[in-house]
């Protein structure tokens, strides 16, 4: 098992027979260091890079030994984490044992037991570097700020637009809900009367009492006169106005129904 039995690695062509002493991490520092590692691959990469080895010529024996030491001390501290490291340890041991078997004269890349490990290490190292590069890009909100000037919208409140159709729709839903078609059939003529009812009430609100004739404006034509008259009758029927006449042929007065102040 001694490393000197055969050169276990070539670093840039030079056979490596001695394990550099700084390959080892002092056990005291282990706990802190493990937090810093992202996982078994990361630890392995660290060990290889710390030794300044060519990643393509991984010295399996010492690496495995040291790795197992770490796993051993780790097991007592963090079992979940240890599981992943144990898988890696198993892989390292498997590779190492296959390396001990007699090798064919010509080594094929694919047949090298270390090939898969090397591929993973290289890919992971590549991604680690990429992560650092992405992190170094100027990030909005961190390294650069987006400009956002206040959009001064008009202070005037926007009111809903209502189209006559919307009123009809509203009425339609009312009908649909209540099936009130019979009671709330409103014709154009009736609407016209209702409009004049409101108008008369408005006039009366201003002047309390009006002479009957003042409510009629002949200029507007006969149909309006008729509608106004119908409106007056309807208002009287609904007891919204009082129509009074002292005696025959005396002026007729129209006033809002007497409202007793409470």
């Amino acid at each position, binding site marked *: 098992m001694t490393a000197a039995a055969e050169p276990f690695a070539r670093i840039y062509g030079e056979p490596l027979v001695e394990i550099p002493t700084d390959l080892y991490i002092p056990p005291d520092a282990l706990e802190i260091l493990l937090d810093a590692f992202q996982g078994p691959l990361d630890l392995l990469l660290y060990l290889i890079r710390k030794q300044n080895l060519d990643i393509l010529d991984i010295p399996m024996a010492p690496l495995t030994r040291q790795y197992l030491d770490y796993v051993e001390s780790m097991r007592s501290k963090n079992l979940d984490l240890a599981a992943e490291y144990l898988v890696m340890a198993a892989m390292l041991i498997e590779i190492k044992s296959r390396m001990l078997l007699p090798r064919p004269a010509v080594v094929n890349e694919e047949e090298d037991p270390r090939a898969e490990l090397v591929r993973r290490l290289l890919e992971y190292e590549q991604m680690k570097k990429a992560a650092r590069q992405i992190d170094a890009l100027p990030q909005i909100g961190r390294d650069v700020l987006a400009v956002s*000037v206040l959009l001064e919208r008009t202070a005037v409140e926007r009111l809903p637009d209502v189209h006559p159709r919307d009123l*009809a729709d509203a009425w339609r839903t009312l009908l649909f809900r209540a099936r009130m078609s019979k009671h709330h059939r409103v014709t154009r003529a009736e609407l016209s009367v209702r409009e004049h009812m409101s108008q008369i009430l408005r006039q009366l609100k201003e002047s309390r009492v009006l002479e009957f004739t003042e409510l009629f404006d002949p200029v507007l034509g006969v149909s309006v006169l008729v509608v106004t008259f119908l409106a007056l009758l309807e208002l009287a029927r609904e007891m919204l106005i009082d129509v009074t006449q002292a005696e025959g042929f005396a002026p007729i007065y129209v006033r809002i129904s007497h409202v007793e102040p409470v």
Partner: protein
Amino acid sequence: MSSPSEVKRVIEAALLSSQEPLSLVDLKRLFEDDIGNDTLRKLLDELREEWSERAVELVSVASGWRFQTAASFRPFIERLNPEKPPRYSRAVMETLAIIAYRQPVTRGDVEDIRGVVVSTQIIQALESRGWIDVVGHRETPGQPALYATTRTFLDDLGLRTLQELPPLEEIARTLQLEPATSQPAANEPAAPAATPQ
């Protein structure tokens, strides 16, 4: 970082990228060197001047200075981010419809038709819009106010008289609430076009 124009550029960038207005104290914090209030105010005035011809302006508000879009830019932003016009709730629309078609009516009348209580807010919304007003009181206990639609209502809806509102007979007919005797054709719009007319 000492030349006035450099300081001005930093102030400008800080104001452009800040979400909130920046006070003189905030702006001073940007620099290691002490910059006097007078200098700052002068630079801010210069900045305001530089920006005066643009669609964005530098303004001074209660809590400090900020950039905002100028009034001239409003029509463009409307096109970029059209604000959805607000809508009245169904309750408001139904109340308005009842007042328009059945006026003059009390709040109780509206409640009878709608079958639910009409809140004061609904009436107020329509009153403050100037679309309804009180035209009298009914001679019943409590003397409830009688509401009617106003001239403003007609104007805003583009109507000359209430008669131009969609007549309710047609509405009832589209719901097929009435026996379809008077206008059979209207009730069969999808009838196979047997004869070209």
